[in-house]
């Protein structure tokens, strides 16, 4: 196969179970599911994009020596097609000696309204399939999946830890013979927020540029240009016109990221009374965000976007002109850096929490007091603290 034009995220898709990084718990669960089949006929792997749902399905199949029959959401619009693929397969259960696993990828794509028949078809398949079914989904908690949730085993795949992403990136760099500094790789790994696919895409784009200074631009792919434009409109325009009402439409970025961008630049754009008013509107926008998250009341998005755009623009009376240097969000990075620095503190607290029936979080909070209590030789021995941890305690 000519791999030259294959995107890295496909080229380096892993097919071996041992290469799947950071999802040990999920791997175990799938194995248990396959062994106990047909106790449950389907397992749903759900989690954010790019954490390895599809790869995991293929890897498990590979290890079990099974063949994958892949269906995606659109196949379910067509009843005949399903019968064609799955029907014979189901009946010829053991003809080839080789087991089969049916993979239904990206089930989120099935619409509850338009594809009503599709979902029913899927559930029907779930009830009678002679082969184990693996389903992948981003948001399994969507209402339309309530029946699916009942019938299938659920396995959540976590976001990949940025350290794991970093390791994968370093691997790929070596194989592709690309030289990128550790700092830059770290930056990509953090920004990917657990999405390996996004991280590899970023790395690939970066590797094709000759100047490293371009790294700044790659960070969030093409998202940044559009977000800068939107910020300029919000922070420098005052009138609320049609364009202002849809100011974030062209920004290809999750709303959580948008909040971070706006928050970071509020104090760049505004001072004094305007800043106070803008903070108030940002706060209200965030309240709607919280309510959407908890109550799944999506209509609140109208207010969320309005407050975040027009609401924050409208705190000033006149348009602003001139060029303003808007900043990238730094909070997530600061949190990450702090966590790196506090790794020892955390590991001490984990040991303390286990011995003393408290939460790790609680121990972290009380750390200033605990470090005094943990000063003695014998208590350190009791908690089995390592040399590094003791050194950390003596330092702070």
């Amino acid at each position, binding site marked *: 196969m000519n791999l030259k034009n294959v995107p890295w995220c496909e080229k380096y898709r892993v097919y071996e179970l041992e290469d799947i990084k950071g999802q040990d718990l999920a791997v175990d669960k799938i194995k248990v599911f396959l062994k106990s089949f047909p106790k449950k006929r389907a397992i749903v792997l759900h989690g954010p994009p790019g954490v390895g749902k599809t790869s995991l399905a293929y890897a498990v199949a590979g290890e079990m020596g099974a063949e994958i029959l892949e269906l995606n959401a659109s196949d379910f619009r067509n009843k005949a097609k399903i019968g064609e693929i799955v029907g014979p397969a189901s009946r010829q259960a053991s003809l080839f000696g080789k087991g089969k696993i049916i993979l239904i990828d990206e089930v989120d794509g099935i619409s509850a309204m338009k594809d009503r028949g599709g979902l029913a078809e899927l559930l029907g398949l779930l009830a009678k399939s002679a082969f184990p079914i693996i389903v992948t989904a981003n948001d399994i908690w969507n209402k339309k999946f309530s029946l699916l949730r009942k019938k299938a085993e659920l396995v959540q795949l976590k976001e990949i830890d940025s350290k794991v992403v970093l390791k994968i990136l370093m691997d790929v760099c070596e194989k592709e013979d690309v030289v990128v500094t550790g700092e830059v790789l770290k930056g990509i790994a953090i920004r990917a927020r657990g999405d390996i696919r996004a991280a590899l895409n970023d790395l690939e784009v970066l590797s094709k540029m000759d100047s490293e200074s371009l790294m700044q631009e790659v960070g969030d792919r093409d998202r940044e240009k559009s977000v800068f434009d939107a910020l300029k409109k919000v922070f420098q325009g005052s009138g609320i016109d049609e364009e202002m009402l849809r100011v974030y439409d062209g920004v290809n970025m999750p709303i959580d990221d948008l909040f971070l961008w706006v928050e970071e630049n509020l104090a760049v754009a505004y001072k004094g009374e305007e800043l106070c008013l803008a903070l108030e509107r940002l706060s209200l926008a965030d309240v709607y965000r919280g309510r959407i998250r908890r109550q799944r009341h999506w209509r609140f998005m109208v207010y969320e976007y309005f407050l975040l755009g027009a609401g924050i623009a409208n705190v000033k009376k006149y348009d602003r002109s001139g060029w303003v240097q808007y900043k990238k969000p730094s909070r997530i990075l600061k949190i990450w850096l702090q966590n790196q620095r506090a790794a020892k503190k955390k590991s001490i607290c984990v040991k303390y929490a286990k011995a003393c*029936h408290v939460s790790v979080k609680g121990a972290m909070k009380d*750390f200033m007091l605990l470090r005094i209590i943990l000063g003695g030789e014998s208590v350190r021995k009791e908690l089995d603290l390592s040399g590094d941890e003791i050194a950390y305690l003596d330092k702070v």
Partner: protein
Amino acid sequence: MGDIYNSEVWTEKYRPQVFEDMVGQEEILKRVKSLVDSMNIPHLLFAGPAGVGKSTLALIIVRRLFGASWRENYLELNASDERGIDVVRQKVKDFARTKALGDVPFKVIFLDEADALTREAQQALRRTMENYTSTCRFVMSCNYSSKILDPIQSRSVVFRFQLLDRKDIKKRIDLIAEREGLVISNDAFSALYEASEGDCRRVINLLQATASISPNVTPDLVNTIVSKAKPSDIKIVLDYALSGDFVNAKEKLLEIMLKESISGQDVIKAIQREIWNLPIDDGVKVALTEKTGEAEFRLVEGADEFIQLEALLAGFIRAGMGDVKEVKGEN
């Protein structure tokens, strides 16, 4: 008196091992004891503030039920650390799969800080409780029972723990002083008690930290430890805000939250207390407190704690500009 648990950490060393050693919560103890004596308990939900004996009672229950083999029949999980319900479920499953050892037909799972679980996780927990009800009993603890889903509450017997009386905590401290050979003056005990807000664990932690310096525990020594252990001063943040310097206020706030691992709730609590020490008019203090209350409400409702705290800082910036009416953002 029960025997002393062999630990160098006093909260463990002096954790009551039998019902008779516990202080306070008399009514609860009576009822729980009679449940345990029948060798069969329902699911239990302990609600109440920190350091009043919820975990201790859970441990006493399993010791009483299972005797020497309690460790094999008991699993402790902390929901605020293991937030993924899948982890919880997996551990529950692994634990419940094997039969209980001994005469009691079930095992006990203690789910500490259960109110830290999301709604979805609680829904899942409810199913788990049902699935394993023949082999497992759940004892859950929480600060506020209102954060626990009704279906879970209705499957459990709920006990509401009260804050411990000063005299009850004194009883425990006197015992420790006697065993450890400490001299604690009345004033020193007051200082310990004041700094702990009725949280017995904190009192004992403070005492151990103080005693590590001298067995003669004085109020001054206690206060030295308290100030050493205090999180960095939130007042610096407020001072920046009052002077109109939002950027530095925000930077400092984030730094404190990250360094001290404190939550937005903790910050709000500290700010609300600090307001009364600020050099501003009473009217402004009232307005700021109102604004703080609103911020705490939004912090619960919203998605990003830090954004809500920043918005609260706006109130302080306005107070610094001297406009009382404006503090609350009423125009």
